[in-house]
């Protein structure tokens, strides 16, 4: 923990201590708000501006954004604060942390706050794909805010050099392999100088793998979050396809591909096609020195991609007045205009269809059509893998995927081991 985070934590503590519980009717209601980004940079300015606008419209509420680092650091801080008794009133955390937060008894569902017809209409306004990770057991626990999905980026210049149509991305697994074979180049001594395709596998390979497994027709976990399906034949087939790209066809770098350097590999023309988040759109747009395209992931038995990103959660330990005020803010910031603005400024997928009908978004999309690809893929999207003891259960899969990709286990064996581990962890939750 560095000093900045310490100060952030201290500020959060001071913020919540400064507010005597119950004495809220007259004075301003203060809501602390954990947001997962490091201090500084363009994103904090956007959030600060939103907070200022909201306070102007609602003088009785004081909004206190606290920038808490990465998603991982933010949930560590939020849960630690929860255990010490003074958690942030609302926070943006990974949508997949829903079960963890429920199990820790740290959050309340949004349902009691949905009172009017208008509220109901608002709750129904989000893309259904995003709500899959936000609802369980008939209750809504999270509100989508900054959500993303996996898409394919391709280098049009390299497509042209390889004799491919630069405007036509691969639409199927077979095409993806065929294109990648044409796009892989070797020098005289047999070293590969340019790879056909790259799917990152460091850190959280399960997320990108979920694209492949969905396309193979499998769903990795049930909606109740207490059973995984890692050893399904379709899942094995998906992993076999990924492993074959590298080990059999040699069109994908061997071993583990680093998530962080993948966009850079793409800029350096070391790879012609890459899978990564829509959240990289703005990055690629400003750094790629060649024409590039953005497409939906190619289909196997079907098209498919997981969703990802963060939801708003409401803390259980906050007072009812604070929860009500936070709810008001969450409703305010997810209106179509603000969702559209947020999507344009950050590259995240705007969370409701209505946001794509706003004038601002329409103007942006006509100038930069790739911005719409993520939305168009949403009908094919599935919930990101999320279960009870989420981090542990996904780690079992991550370890298995990395073992298969580095060649120490066969896909079949790796996934069977991962499934056995997940079974052991999830049994007590059924």
């Amino acid at each position: 923990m560095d000093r900045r985070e310490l100060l952030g934590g201290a500020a959060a503590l001071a913020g919540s201590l400064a507010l005597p519980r119950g004495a809220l009717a007259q004075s301003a209601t203060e809501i602390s708000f954990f947001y997962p980004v490091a201090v500084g940079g363009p994103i904090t300015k956007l959030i600060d501006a939103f907070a200022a606008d909201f306070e102007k419209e609602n003088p009785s509420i004081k909004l206190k954004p606290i920038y808490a680092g990465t998603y991982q650091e933010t949930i560590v801080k939020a849960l630690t604060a929860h255990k010490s008794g003074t958690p942030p009133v609302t926070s943006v955390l990974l949508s997949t942390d829903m079960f963890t937060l429920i199990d820790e008894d740290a959050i309340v569902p949004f349902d009691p706050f949905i009172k009017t017809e208008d509220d109901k209409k608002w709750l129904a306004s989000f893309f259904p794909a995003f709500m899959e990770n936000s609802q369980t057991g008939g209750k809504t626990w999270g509100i989508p805010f900054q959500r993303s999905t996996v898409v394919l980026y391709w280098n049009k210049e390299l497509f042209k050099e390889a004799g491919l149509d630069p405007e036509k991305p691969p639409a199927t697994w077979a095409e993806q392999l065929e294109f990648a074979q044409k796009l892989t180049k070797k020098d005289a001594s047999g070293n590969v100088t340019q790879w056909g395709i790259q799917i990152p596998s460091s850190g959280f390979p399960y997320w990108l793998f979920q694209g492949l497994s969905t396309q193979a027709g499998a769903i990795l976990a049930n909606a109740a979050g207490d059973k995984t399906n890692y050893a399904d034949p379709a899942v094995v087939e998906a992993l076999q396809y990924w492993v074959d790209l590298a080990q059999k066809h040699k069109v994908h770098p061997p071993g583990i591909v680093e998530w962080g350097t993948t966009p850079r590999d793409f800029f350096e023309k070391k790879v012609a096609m890459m899978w990564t988040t829509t959240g990289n759109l703005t990055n690629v747009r400003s750094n790629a020195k060649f024409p590039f395209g953005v497409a939906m992931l190619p289909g196997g038995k079907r098209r498919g991609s997981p969703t990802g990103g963060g939801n708003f959660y409401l803390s259980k330990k906050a007072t009812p007045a604070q929860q009500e005020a936070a709810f008001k803010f969450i409703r305010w910031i997810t209106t179509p205009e603000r969702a559209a603005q947020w999507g344009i400024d950050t590259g995240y997928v705007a969370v409701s269809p209505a946001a794509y009908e706003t004038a601002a978004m329409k103007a942006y999309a006509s100038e930069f059509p790739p911005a719409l690809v993520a939305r168009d893929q949403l009908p094919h999207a599935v919930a990101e893998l999320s279960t009870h003891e989420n981090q542990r259960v996904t780690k079992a899969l991550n370890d298995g995927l990395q073992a298969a990709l580095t060649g120490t286990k066969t896909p079949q064996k790796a996934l069977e081991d991962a499934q056995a581990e997940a079974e052991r962890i999830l049994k007590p939750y059924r």
Partner: protein
Amino acid sequence: MNTRATATVHGWLLLLPAMACLALFTHWPAVASLIESFYSTPRGRRPARFVGADNYQQMLADPIFWKAMSNNLWFALGTIPTSIALAMLMALWVNDRIVGRTWVRMSFFTPTILPMIAVANIWLFFFTPQYGLLEQIIQAFGGSNTNWLGSQDTALYAVTIVAIWKEAGFFMIFYLAALQAIPPSLGEAAAIEGASRWTYFRRVQFPLLMPTTLFVLINAVINAFRMVDHIFVMTRGGPDNATTLLLFYIYQVGFSFWDTAYAATLTCVLLLLLALVAFAQYGWLERRIHYR
């Protein structure tokens, strides 16, 4: 009251602030971890309950724990002797009157003052396949591509090298200070006797450096179990736990899985391990060291 008793009370009162801090922030957490390791992890509405040695049994059956232990052992074996030898070598070199001595000393010490997270990001670029610095050098000599961090065979070596690079400069400072404390008359006497440079080092300098070596050794051992910052940046324990070190695993269990009881169990094992090593070093090695 006699003066002796007053002096005792005064002594204890003077010690009290430091002792309170030590007890509150060091001893109590250690004891609390030990107690917690015998209870289950409290979750939501389920409070912690006494489970005896269950957590320890779980640990013995946990393949990732054993993997982390063996990784840590190799990491320690890789970092400790190499960084100490390197530190001694660098200290001997910059102790001489060479041109640009200040500059060389500074450049050796630089890795120590840089934050680990920042240098890990730089090293991440060094190890990048295809166009990373290391790859460019290897390719210039006609070698083939290696995915240093992305292969189970090389990832642990890669993170070990970063640790050595980071540590050697720090240890060099201690050796440099010790070398400068050696009276020049010893060197002059050796020169008159016609001793070679190697003999002078082996018979005079090396024995006189032993107290420093013990100190550095203890630090190196502790660091081998404590340095995990670069793991977060470079590999996050992957591929398939090939670079998971014990402390990294404790963090993961404690703050990703929120299994605090199991994390406490692992912490106790780490503490025990470090305590054993420290006792062995002080008890056994110290007796063989010549103090002036």
